[in-house]
């Protein structure tokens, strides 16, 4: 039996023990979208007890890839990779949710989800000297979401890290194609990106989803990247990283992005950095670290089922309000975008660190 078939079989006999952890189940309040429901439906399709229809296969897309259920499950049953495998089947059979195919169509035109080339956006903002040349070893890869929605963070990151920018025409890792189940296009993009990424020894990024995609998913598509990957929070806490000055700031709450937390187990570095500049640890959400609740932006859910994605973001926003913090800090541009969409003052980690640092310098200058 293939791994994803074993996984669906296990879930189909389970009394839904991880359901409490699944934000989609929480939002839709429906058995069919619990991890058990989605996996059992796929098993029934496999066993030909359920017809393969767009409605049923749509259940494979009702997942954020957040891995919360895997962490709640004592068998660590890989639910989201199994559902990803069924997305590929659904996509091939033209049974993905209605919005997915047009989304991929749009993606293919510019190799990102934004309907325009993103390298020129960077070129307009930054002088040529800030782009990596042939001799660069370490580069900063901002990823399409940061470029399109939060370029101020890219600017601050370059300043703080003093790294050159990734200079290639394709500025997207292709995760949206992967999450759409468009494995062929994802694979092709991975191959092109692999060649470009392999020119460097180290890729630093603020986007944990890109990091996972390029480091792990490319490998499963047969395109292993030789370069080492680091998240900015890891870079900034490694030896030789630029120093940060300390200044007491207002109360901030830290949100664990799924791809940095559960996927990479990077929980402490961002917290340490926040503490370093503010003098105190961030306020914790009730659900944090391994139990962190997704922002609603993963798994292409905002495209395939926007209402569910929005309900999840609203829940996380409500959880943020309960912390009593003034500012939400997180380490992923997708999360920042989701929170801002719902009126939260949210900042990426670097944005917060640089602002804190500069406020400090300004106040020193004034003195």
């Amino acid at each position, binding site marked *: 039996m293939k791994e994803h078939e074993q996984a669906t079989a*296990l879930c189909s006999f*389970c*009394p839904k023990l991880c359901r409490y952890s699944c934000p989609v189940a929480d939002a839709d309040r429906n058995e069919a979208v619990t991890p058990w429901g989605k996996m059992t439906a796929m098993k029934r399709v496999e066993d030909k007890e359920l017809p393969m229809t767009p409605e049923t296969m749509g259940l494979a897309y009702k997942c954020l890839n957040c891995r919360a259920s895997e962490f709640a499950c004592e*068998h660590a049953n890989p639910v989201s990779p199994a559902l990803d495998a069924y997305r590929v089947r659904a996509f091939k059979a033209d049974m993905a949710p209605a919005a997915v195919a047009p989304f991929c169509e749009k993606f293919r035109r510019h190799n990102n989800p934004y309907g325009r080339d993103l390298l020129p956006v960077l070129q307009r903002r930054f002088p040529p000297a800030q782009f990596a040349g042939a001799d660069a070893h370490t580069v900063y890869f901002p990823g399409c979401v940061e470029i399109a929605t939060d370029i101020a963070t890219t600017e601050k990151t370059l300043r703080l890290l003093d790294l050159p920018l990734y200079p290639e025409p394709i500025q997207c890792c292709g995760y949206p194609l992967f999450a759409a189940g468009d494995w062929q296009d994802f694979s092709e993009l991975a191959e092109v990106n692999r060649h470009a990424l392999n020119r460097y020894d180290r890729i630093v990024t603020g986007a944990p989803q890109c990091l996972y995609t390029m480091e792990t998913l490319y490998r499963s598509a047969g395109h292993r990247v030789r370069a080492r990957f680091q998240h900015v929070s890891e870079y900034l806490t490694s030896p030789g990283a630029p120093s940060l000055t300390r200044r007491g700031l207002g109360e901030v709450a830290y949100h664990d992005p799924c791809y940095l937390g559960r996927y990479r187990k990077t929980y402490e570095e961002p917290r340490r950095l926040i503490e370093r500049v503010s003098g105190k640890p961030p306020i914790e959400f009730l659900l944090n670290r391994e139990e962190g609740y997704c922002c609603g932006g993963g798994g292409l859910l905002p495209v395939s089922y926007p209402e569910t994605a929005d309900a999840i973001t609203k829940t996380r926003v409500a959880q943020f309000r309960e912390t009593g913090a003034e500012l939400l800090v997180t380490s992923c541009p997708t999360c920042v975008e989701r929170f801002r969409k719902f009126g939260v003052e949210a900042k990426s980690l670097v944005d917060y660190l640089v602002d804190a640092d500069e406020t400090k310098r300004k106040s020193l200058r004034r003195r």
Partner: protein
Amino acid sequence: MNPRWAKALESALGKERVAVDPASRLLYARDMMSGGLLEEKARHEPHLPQAVCRPASVSHIRGILAVARRHGVPVVPFGAGSGVSGGTNPVRGGIMLDLKSFTRLGPIEERGGRFYVTAESGILGQHLERDLNARGFTLGHFPSSILCATVGGYLACRSAGQLSSKYGKIEDMTDAVEVVLASGEVVPFGGRLKKFPGLRPEDVFIGSEGCLGVFTRARFRVFPLPPATLYRGLSFRRVEDALTAVRQIMQSGLRPAVVRLYDPVDSLLLKHGYKKKNRSRSRSKTGGRADWHYPLLLSRPSLVQKLVERASSEALLILGFEGDAELAREMERQALRHAATLRAKDLGPEPGQHWHDHRYSVSFKMPRLFANGCYVDTIETATTWDNLQALYDGMREALMRRVLVLAHFSHAYPEGCSIYFTVVGKCRGPEEDLKTYGEIWHDAMEVCLGLGATISHHHGIGLLKAKFLPRELGGAMPLFRDIKKGLDPWNILNPGKMGLGS
């Protein structure tokens, strides 16, 4: 084909709250009754509902019930489907009434020095406890299904949690309920039943398994989080001695929060767990990987049972005390005194701590066993102290020929105690397994009824034990039928369950 009344449902609560697609219908067809899983393995077609509804308000529920009355369609209240007695299986088709959109939780209220909270019926147990803990309180209700059951399901099945010896069962914690009747009438919160004014709604509806009304919310007594918890493990040479000790402890007026006495086979498994000190606390990355040793071990259950029992007759008792630190310590001291008179060996706090850290792990064994060519089920019964040993012996004798039998005594009270049997068997062929399964339940129920023990302490009657309930209730069964007729003359609420006929 969509049922002819589907349109009426859609206009009552909106199209997005009514599902008639094949996947939704199939995924609501069974609860977690092991017999259902065996039927699934045998590829028997389940009874399917024709529609799944997700009401978000009392008026939605009333709208659904109006459609059901008009068209004579069954309505099955549905919490999270974690029931193990087939309580939600739509044996007559109809409408699944999924209540999980009822998720509001009120503030903590103080009345006469006691604390209460009002919770809607669709809240998951784990979410309720988490949110109460965040406010410094606990419901004190910790069923092994806390991760996957709703408040409505708790009420409907008279659920019992692991700390029941201190906090009681769900009915003991419930102060008031709101129920929608088949007529659409709402029994007011904390009010009285018009039709049967002498009866408290809590007494009528708690345990009625969706056959008499639909819970929408309940007010529970809650408790400040205990400042101290102490655990203790004790080893007895024989189950009988341990039972005497538990009885003495409960009848002396002590109120331990946790009382769990494991028989020799169950003790061995528990000890195996806590001796493996360096293992990760919970998760092990096994995913859906196959386990060959389960079916191998279970191919001759009676032999395994004998071998284990010959190796050890030791019974392990876990005690837990909660509350004020000094009081907890004193209760522990007194309990140890009782145990010492029965020559118990004190194992210290570690076995109890281990039990606490892994208290929900046993539920995770269920899918693994089923996925690996075995089946497992649990039979929970209860009786008075004078009858307990006979019940334990009788059940084991009836079951051991076919399956491996583990038992623990939990939910101890001054009057008596519940026994929770776990039976594990190896699959030998889908039809044969179903036959054996039927025989196991038949024999087990016969033993309970023969000895005057209850056929259910907290899992409910549902479909599984429906035909045995009239014998347990005896002269009270006609009264139960009259109440059903009086409250649901249309027989639309969960028909075919609890021995109430079709």
